[in-house]
């Protein structure tokens, strides 16, 4: 019974730290995005709150927290209230299966425990995909229940976009699953340790998954509703898309969900294609007599990779114009899908030849 209590306490600590780190990262990203966009457009970004504007996320958060939360008279109250939560929760709980550091089995207070992953389930990839799909419900319910034309159109567009690109995400990762013979995020990371030439995006034999990675990252940008695929919230035509009618904390939740999803897909891309916490060159990882510090370098490299992908998101936003809706659907169904399918066929044939 004591064991269960300690295990519970350790798990709660893990969950609390992961949620805390994710929410803090979201706060940091809202500032970083505006700063990066500012620099790319040769201006300063937010500068007023605190030195160099670093307290801007705090100010934004407090403002949204104290704002009146308007529910339009025509809205379906229950669904309108629940949609932001339904959108935020799946974005947060995806982090339960991400390995942030080396796979250690440590024994603390007589309880076996993996410090760097909340739960290593053997269907990790499937779990993330399943909950990512539930996020679409939040979007479409929010759009429909607002009883506003902009919201309805935004919600519909968003739902069609999410499901179209989810198919491509699902197809793009089949190659990785084939090479690693596992759905567990931990096993997939472990199969890639030893340097960047063993990461699935680059591993030359049997077939590098770089094309699959490109498909995955494009589809992920579309799934998180980021520019150039931000049609659900296209300001110039739909005001703000599915969250036009939202204000205050509920609006903040949609915002949180979008950024948490960005972090999540960056983590998934890191784990599946870029070796997770593995260092690009083996000597950049603490080992030998310093092996007890391996987690430090592991988490460092994980963070570096995730932030590289997040920077890529901002970079795309600063560079590319928004697609038209027919271009978006055509690109997803007629370009990405055949590429992803072809990748599976080639990967499986090559894997058979080299097995």
């Amino acid at each position: 019974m004591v064991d269960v209590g300690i295990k519970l306490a350790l798990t709660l600590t893990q969950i609390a730290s992961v949620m805390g780190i994710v929410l803090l990262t979201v706060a940091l990203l809202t500032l970083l995005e505006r700063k990066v966009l500012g620099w790319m457009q040769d201006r300063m970004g937010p500068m007023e709150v605190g030195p160099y504007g670093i307290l801007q996320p705090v100010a934004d958060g407090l403002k949204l927290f104290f704002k009146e939360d308007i529910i339009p008279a025509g809205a379906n109250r229950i669904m309108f209230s629940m949609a932001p939560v339904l959108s935020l929760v799946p974005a947060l709980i995806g982090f339960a299966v991400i390995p942030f550091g080396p796979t250690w089995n440590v024994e603390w207070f007589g309880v076996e425990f993996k410090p760097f992953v909340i739960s290593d389930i053997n269907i990790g990839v499937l779990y993330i995909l399943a909950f990512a799909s539930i996020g679409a419900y939040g979007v479409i319910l929010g759009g429909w229940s607002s009883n506003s034309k902009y919201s309805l159109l935004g919600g519909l567009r968003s739902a069609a976009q999410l499901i179209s690109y989810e198919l491509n995400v699902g197809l793009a990762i089949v190659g990785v699953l084939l090479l690693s013979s596992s759905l567990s995020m931990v096993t997939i990371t472990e199969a890639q340790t030893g340097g960047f030439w063993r990461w699935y995006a680059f591993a030359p034999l049997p077939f590098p998954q770089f094309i699959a990675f490109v498909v995955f990252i494009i589809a992920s940008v579309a799934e998180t509703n980021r520019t150039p695929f931000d049609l659900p919230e296209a300001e110039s035509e739909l005001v703000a898309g599915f969250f036009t009618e939202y204000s205050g904390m509920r609006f903040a939740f949609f915002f949180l969900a979008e950024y948490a999803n960005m972090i999540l897909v960056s983590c998934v891309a890191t784990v599946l294609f870029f070796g997770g916490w593995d260092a690009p060159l083996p000597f950049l990882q603490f080992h030998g007599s310093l092996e007890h510090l391996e987690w430090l370098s592991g988490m460092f490299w994980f963070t570096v990779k995730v932030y590289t992908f997040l920077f890529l998101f901002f970079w795309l936003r600063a560079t590319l114009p928004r697609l038209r809706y027919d271009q978006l659907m055509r690109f997803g169904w007629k370009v990405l899908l055949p590429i992803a399918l072809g990748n599976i066929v080639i990967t499986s044939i090559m894997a058979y030849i080299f097995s």
Partner: protein
Amino acid sequence: MVGLDLLAEYLSKYSPILIFIVLALGFGLVTLALSYLVQPKYPEAEKLTTYECGSEPFSDSRMPFPIRYYVIAMLFVIFDIEVIFLYPWAITFYDLGIIGLIEMLIFIGLFVVAYVYAWQKGALEWD
């Protein structure tokens, strides 16, 4: 005992996830509740009307929408199930050998037939 051991293993692996779901849900609801306590509430009829660029909303928004969205949803359901069938094959690929490869190439061939059919029928067009 085997069954009980399996159950214990599942519980130890999936209970953290259940706790996480509960905590994430709790975070959402508690934050909303706290915000509800501190925020000003001045509802007015004008403020609560649906936003339509400042003009009076002229019809209900519960209106018919293009059938295209429905077609895309149907295609997604069909193709996504086929993708899910690829997963068990992919993770047992090295155990199945040549038989598994050939069978799955036939399966992907059927996938392509359905895909080409949908394309030819114009289900993927958007105008």
